[in-house]
């Protein structure tokens, strides 16, 4: 019934007036049922199209294979020369993420200013499109393309992280700038300050805390991403992991895995500690 009602062209004014007084409008139709049905169908179709392989997951055979793999990691490789290699890869991972975040921040600021509509509507569209593209392509895809241009190693990995992060940070920044109160900026402009100076003295101090916390959060994400980026040859712990896994050196692989888990857990712990301290 509700569906029908929406198709009826609006009646003359007098009728509408009386209808509003006499008849209670029908309750809005609930969309929930349709949505649930759509989601359920998506899930069923997804499992159905996985070619039934997933049933094999719960077979004893594949469970045994997994157990084999995980027990194969032990005992971990603890040769001091290998440990030094892992430590270096860890440092490389952190350095990649740090530098990438820094480059991304600079690029993000440059693109976010037009993306916040500060240099016209057209520039805003273009800048937003650039940011969306940078953001939509994952680090790993960027890396696999940059590896072609720059060869293997941490350098293409750093660039790949920077590209993706610039997109993410740029958009957050643009939104922050658009939502920042305009009064400080306008007041300085009225008094004759140039656009850049008014931005630096009026707008930037307002959004700076937000920028700082976004950037730290992205750095945290980037450490995690840098750890795995090496899988396609872009340096860091991931490259080491892939290398030893390919050579079926499971003890070495186990050590790298442990280093990776420790690094991620450490970053997680530190960031939640910092967030708690900032909140209090």
């Amino acid at each position, binding site marked *: 019934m509700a569906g029908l009602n929406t198709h009826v062209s609006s009646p003359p004014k007098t009728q509408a007036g009386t209808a509003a007084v006499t008849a209670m409008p029908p309750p809005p139709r609930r969309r929930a049922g349709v949505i649930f049905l759509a989601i359920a169908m998506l899930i069923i*179709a*997804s499992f159905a199209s996985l070619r039934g392989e997933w049933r094999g997951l719960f077979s004893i055979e594949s469970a045994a294979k997994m157990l084999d793999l995980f027990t194969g990691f032990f005992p971990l490789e603890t040769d001091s020369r290998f440990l030094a290699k892992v430590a270096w890869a860890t440092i*490389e991972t952190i350095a990649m993420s740090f530098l990438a975040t820094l480059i991304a921040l600079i690029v993000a600021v440059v693109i976010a200013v037009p993306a916040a509509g500060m240099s016209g509507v057209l520039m805003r569209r273009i800048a937003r499109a650039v940011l969306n593209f940078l953001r939509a392509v994952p680090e*790993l*895809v960027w890396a696999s393309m940059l590896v*072609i241009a720059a060869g293997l190693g941490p350098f293409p990995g750093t660039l790949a992280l920077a590209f993706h992060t610039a997109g993410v940070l740029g958009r957050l920044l643009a939104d922050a700038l658009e939502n920042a109160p305009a009064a400080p900026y306008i007041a300085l402009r009225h008094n004759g300050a140039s656009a850049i100076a008014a931005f630096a003295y009026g707008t930037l101090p307002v959004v700076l805390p937000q920028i700082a916390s976004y950037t730290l959060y992205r750095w945290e994400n980037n450490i995690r991403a840098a750890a*795995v980026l090496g*899988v396609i040859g872009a340096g860091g712990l991931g490259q080491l992991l*892939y290398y030893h896994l390919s050579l079926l050196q499971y003890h070495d692989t186990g050590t790298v895995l442990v280093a990776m888990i420790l690094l*991620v857990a450490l970053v997680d712990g530190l960031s939640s500690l910092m967030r708690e301290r900032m909140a209090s």
Partner: protein
Amino acid sequence: MMTMNRSASRPDPAWHERLIATWVLVFVIMGCLVVTEFKPWTLLDEPSLRATRQFLASFFPPAHDAVFLKLILVSTWQTIAVATAGVTLALIFAVPLALIATRTLSISRLGQGQSQNHAAWLPKIIRHAVRGLLIMLRSIPELVWGLLFVRAIGLGDTAGVLAIALTYCGMMGKVFLEIMESQDARTADTLLINGASRSQAFLYATLPNCLPEMVSYTVFRWECAIRSSVILGFVGAGGLGQQMDLSMRMLAGGQVVTMLAAFVALVWIADIISKQLRSWLD
């Protein structure tokens, strides 16, 4: 003039801090530049320029023959299927795990002050064990899980589903736990005191409060899973990512461009769907 002189005796208290921070930053950046072998000029070397040029030149025209487009359509669906199946499995495991780990629904906590908590040591141990499990699950990136599963059970989308399920189970479990614990405990307490079981208290008190937030987070995670699913393809877990990896190895730029477009469109549509769903929830 007096005033000017007096201000000189009031130096900027933040100045030294700033100076030190600047120098530290400069050294750290220089260190990072060395460690990451950051040499942008290598991009302009003749060999790498040639490789880049060839790769970029092969971008045009984008591949668009019917066979390839059908392949893309199939792999795109595979990507969606892997993400959806992974998130579904993650959800199925994350809710009970969060339920076990939440303190709000602890029956043993009822009627006890803080000091007497040792009486219920078994539930406490279980709670901590579950929390530890959730932390472990999410501290291993899905790509690493994928790599290991591909090793263990072979190439294919099963490895992708499992990888997403495990990592996302950890993430979703943790967030569900936080959502539940941030709820007002009194609603659930009232039911527990009146003799309701944990699951009843969950269904009648906690769930109605947290459901919108939990559903909204699950939808958000599904959106992330689509991206993860593409990435997992790069290590051989099927879908768009695997095709992209193959095309890149063959330096078939035209195919890469088409797939990149398909991928950006997919992410964009997932973003719209997820935003729409979440706005309906509010």
